[in-house]
């Protein structure tokens, strides 16, 4: 583990009777891409606003590179940010906005910025009022990735990007990680988080319900196993780790099919299956989407 770049300790934000973020404690280290998952209204943006010092915590505190987030002048020397809904000055061109953000933000690598402008296919000569949502997002992404700030805070940064640009985004995140920058990526796009994050925190109604690596998160959840047998079906009822055994309609050749959920070590289930005449075995790992639905239930996972 590298140095801690972003840290929240007991971070809480209350709006009157509503608790938007509740006792949030997490750390993001250098060279780490941290996914911050949650549905709309879970408190992701409020957390980010507290990290940026834009909102005052009701309790707890956050630090950026060891500096209290409330000390904006010092903390923001180590930070770059892409908001979820990028709003730019309509009368300024893309070039003028990048120049403005370079002067007001942390230091910029101008050569790398030019490379990013090319990669994101950004026309900087146009005024921002002519930019689409995706182009506005690209301006903010180029400005953020071109910095050498230790912490990049990205709030749903790809919602307006097309698939080609999403690929460029992922490349830029990987390059940032290689340079030692840490990326705090708030998202509700599970595929994106699954593809680029090292660790993930899942926020539900303001509370952190899990904090794990992508791989570990999956192991916490049940694997779905479908077995096709030509002989007598295996007895799985009392096998440790096996649950939700379900007999499926047989296949066209008359073979028996069954499905069960497997959690924990698979050895007992494999031993039980060894006694049966197994013709086919399909093991399916749950997607992050399904893990997500486990936390939130079907309604929240819309």
């Amino acid at each position, binding site marked *: 583990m590298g140095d801690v770049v972003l840290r929240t300790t007991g971070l809480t934000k209350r709006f*009157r009777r509503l608790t938007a973020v509740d006792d949030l404690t997490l750390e993001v280290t250098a060279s780490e891409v941290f996914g911050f998952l949650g549905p709309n209204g879970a408190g992701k943006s409020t957390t980010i*606003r507290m990290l940026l010092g834009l909102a005052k915590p009701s309790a707890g505190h956050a630090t950026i590179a060891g500096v209290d987030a409330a000390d904006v002048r010092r903390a923001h020397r180590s930070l770059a940010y892409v*908001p979820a809904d*990028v709003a730019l000055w309509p009368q300024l061109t893309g070039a003028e906005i990048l120049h*403005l*953000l370079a002067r*007001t933000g942390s230091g*910029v690598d101008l050569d790398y910025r030019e490379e990013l402008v090319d990669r994101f296919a950004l026309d900087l000569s146009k005024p921002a009022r002519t930019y689409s949502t995706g182009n506005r997002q690209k301006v903010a992404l180029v400005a953020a990735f071109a910095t050498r700030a230790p912490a990049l805070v990205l709030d749903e940064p790809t919602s307006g990007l097309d698939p080609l640009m999403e690929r460029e985004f992922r490349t830029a995140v990987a390059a940032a990680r290689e340079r030692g920058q840490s990326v705090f990526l708030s998202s509700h796009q599970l595929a994106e988080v699954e593809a680029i994050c090292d660790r993930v925190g899942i926020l539900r109604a303001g509370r952190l319900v899990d904090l794990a690596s992508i791989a570990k998160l999956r192991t916490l959840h049940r694997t779905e196993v479908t077995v096709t047998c030509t002989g007598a079906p295996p007895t799985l009822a009392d096998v440790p780790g096996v649950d939700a055994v379900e007999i499926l309609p047989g296949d066209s050749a008359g073979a028996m099919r069954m499905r069960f959920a497997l959690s924990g070590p698979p050895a007992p289930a494999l031993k039980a299956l060894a006694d049966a005449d197994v013709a086919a075995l399909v093991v399916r790992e749950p997607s992050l989407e399904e893990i997500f639905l486990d936390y939130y239930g079907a309604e929240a996972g819309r």
Partner: protein
Amino acid sequence: MTATPIAADAGARRATTGLAVRQIRLGALLLLAVAAGAPAMVAGTYERVTSDPAALAGLGALAGNAAIRTIFGEPIALDEAGGFTVWRLGTVLGAILAVWAVVATTRVTRGEEDHGRWDVLLAGRLPLRQVLFRHLMVIASVPVVAGAAIMVVLLVFGGSDSAGAVVHGAGVALLGLFAAALAALTAQIFSARTAATGTAIAILGAGLLARMAADGVPALGRLRWLSPFGLLEISSAYDRNRVSPLLVLAAATALLYVAVAVVCGRRDVGGGLLPAAAGRRPPPRAARHGGGFRGPPAARAAGRLVRRDRCLLPGHRG
């Protein structure tokens, strides 16, 4: 990349100032043209009016009319081009400058926050208070230059009383600064631009009404001390040239700026000191661009009026 933090902070401050200038420069130039041009034109008509006995008699009758007196203020020093110009234009120019200052202030502070443009700016090196005061400083320079322009025009065309030109120029500048400070404060209190603009305009409107009431009803003369327009009037440019009302206006303006600094430090970015009305969630930013009204009913009503008419104001970009 190699700049020291101090140099980088200075660069950030200059860039923020430049941004504020870009946002108000067109409206400000138009306003300055009016501030300098209108007094020159009115002062230029003075010779013609006073050389024609019929026109002079008409002016005397007009000045004695109670309704005219209520609108334009007490006619004093009409025997001099400067005094005549101040009487004809003082209230009108003051009101135009004050309304511009309010609309420009709420547009480039609360409006920018409301649109989310300050999100990327405030992720930079400068904290909210500094970004806010950089913008306020640029806006404040406009009434100061407008007041100076009026003063120069009156010095050239207004006659021999140079103290009158200075007092009136300073008074108009202070009135504009007061309006900008008031709008900056309401922009810290309310989380919606329309409520902030509406409240500031309503307060200034009440101030103008107080001055009018004081001019119309002698028993209410002291109300002038409670109104920025009244204070401008009782500075009595080209007559007594009183400085004390201007000092009161300057002190009130300074207090407002102190209040802005205090309140700004007590709120979240994107929010106001007063939370949104109970039971109503703030609409999303995109929807708010179309105009969400929050705040007291009077402020909302005034805000709607301003929203309807503000596209006619100099510097408005929508």
